[in-house]
């Protein structure tokens, strides 16, 4: 059945929507396999942003003139698109931020600052990106709280058997990645949320690596916060979203002070604006929000079931052919995985692999992927990572494998 779905998915037609993909790199066709770092943008997103600047540019929420009205409308429409995309109950629960990192910092600096105290604990996991470690470390250090870490297996799966023991009366929040950026592991968020909620502990999900690969429903997940980046969802950089449960958002203090987050200011006292404006100080990334809205429209026009099937097939194919390359070991072999292929190759350092692949037109990421504790846990200084998106093809995976032969040739 999956073959039928996959064949209904016309990847060549999709590729034509992404102008950058026709490029040649060092004389070779571009094979872009660095989608976990950032995804490419379809023409529809680029056009929407150009239109925003060319036709609707004005500041939002304050002008009485028509352009400002149009800009405000576009910005708020984007908010509603994201609300529906994440199936959030209320558009007010969608806060525009710069990206996942800012979303997590917002929660750490507001919810965390109020609720985490001396002797308390924040629970994260061993596979988190630095952006879901450091903000918590900062607040723990400031408050005299303790950062606890849920261990993982050698395959790169969470040690769910240890979760109960780590959820204590002192745990104030759990912060966990939906999908690991380094390994592709899809974590059992629903189970984690259920267990945390049994103890009244809220859960923040780092959704940066999930949204481009699977439908996300924050109500079905049950999480209290969900942070994501536009640029990993075929949208622009500099725009992201934090979903937060309305009751929690309303109780939280503001993040930054400035315009748009106030309802009245005197030198004696400021009354803060309502959610979400309370968390959106300053002129936001208006064109970015429009671009993100356009990216969601683009995805909605596709059959996400077919997209997922296509990616699953690519991942299975990639796992097979990459695993068959002599000397290659795939790092991260969870049973439930998104389309990330992290690997090491004999004693060739990933940086050297990356440079040689680039000469063949193949773009991958090499290094620690901002997950140094994870690399240490898996006893590798770094990995080479090919991360796939809906526009990738089997031929491109073949190109990756072909380029690895060059690596072998040079490092014979």
């Amino acid at each position, binding site marked *: 059945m999956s073959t039928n779905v996959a064949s209904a998915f016309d990847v060549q037609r999709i590729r034509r929507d992404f102008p950058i993909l026709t490029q040649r790199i060092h004389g070779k066709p571009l094979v872009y396999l660095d989608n976990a770092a950032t995804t490419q943008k379809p023409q529809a997103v680029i056009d929407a942003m150009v239109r925003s600047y060319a036709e609707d540019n004005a500041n939002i929420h304050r002008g009485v003139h028509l352009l400002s009205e149009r800009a405000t409308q576009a910005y708020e429409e984007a908010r509603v698109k994201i609300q529906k995309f994440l199936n959030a109950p209320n558009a007010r629960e969608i806060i525009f931020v710069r990206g996942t990192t800012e979303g997590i910092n917002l929660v750490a600096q507001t919810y965390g600052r109020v609720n985490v105290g001396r002797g308390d604990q924040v629970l994260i996991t061993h596979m988190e990106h630095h952006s879901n470690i450091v903000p918590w470390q900062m607040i723990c250090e400031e408050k005299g709280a303790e950062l606890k870490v849920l261990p993982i297996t050698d395959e790169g799966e969470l040690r769910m058997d240890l979760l109960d023991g780590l959820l204590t009366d002192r745990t104030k929040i759990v912060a966990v990645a939906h999908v690991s950026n380094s390994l592709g592991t899809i974590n059992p968020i629903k189970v984690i949320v259920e267990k945390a909620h049994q103890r009244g502990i809220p859960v923040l999900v780092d959704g940066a690596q999930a949204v481009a690969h699977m439908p996300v429903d924050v109500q079905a997940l049950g999480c209290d916060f969900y942070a994501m980046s536009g640029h990993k969802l075929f949208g622009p950089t500099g725009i992201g979203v934090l979903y937060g449960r309305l009751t929690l958002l309303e109780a939280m203090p503001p993040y930054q002070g400035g315009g748009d987050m106030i309802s009245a200011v005197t030198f004696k006292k400021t009354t803060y604006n309502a959610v979400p404006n309370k968390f959106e100080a300053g002129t936001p990334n208006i064109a970015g929000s429009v671009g993100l809205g356009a990216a969601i429209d683009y995805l909605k026009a596709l059959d996400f079931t077919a997209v997922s099937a296509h990616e699953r097939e690519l991942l299975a194919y990639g796992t097979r052919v990459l695993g068959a390359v002599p000397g290659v070991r795939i790092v991260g072999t969870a049973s439930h995985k998104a389309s990330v292929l992290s690997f090491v190759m004999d004693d060739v350092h990933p*940086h050297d692999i990356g*440079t040689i692949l680039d000469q063949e037109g193949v773009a991958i990421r090499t*290094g*620690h992927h901002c997950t140094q504790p994870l690399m240490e846990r898996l006893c590798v200084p770094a990995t080479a990572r090919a991360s796939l998106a809906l526009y990738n093809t089997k031929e491109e995976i073949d190109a990756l494998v072909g380029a690895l032969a060059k690596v072998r040739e*040079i*490092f014979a």
Partner: protein
Amino acid sequence: MDLRELYQEVILDHNKRPRNFRVPDPVNRRAEGYNPLCGDKITVFLYVEGDVIKDLGFQGTGCAISKASASMMTDVLKGKTLEDANRFFDQFHDMVTAPATAEVKSDHLGKLAVLSGVREYPMRVKCASLAWHTMKAAMQAENNVVSTE
């Protein structure tokens, strides 16, 4: 540029069999170098007597370029004065950071000149220079004090 110009045999050889990949005994100066971009780590150890580097070595993990650069550096600097080492540092630094189009006089650098290819790969310049920056920090370090770049 051909990849073979970056990954020359000499470099591949030093990567495979790094020279002075050890902690010298005795040692009286050391420094740790760290490339936060890629996670490469290196420690350079020196035994300095008077103003002469009597012995030196390195430990750590890194790519072929960084390992070969460290290995060749230790080969070249053994027995040199601190002043000589500083001059080598400057010349090496100039060589790897010069614009790719500029002609570089690297004759005085001897075999270190094989690393001039990194100029064509801006992302890799740091790989080649990490060991040198760490060595410079070690020269300036107090006895046995670890300083991180």
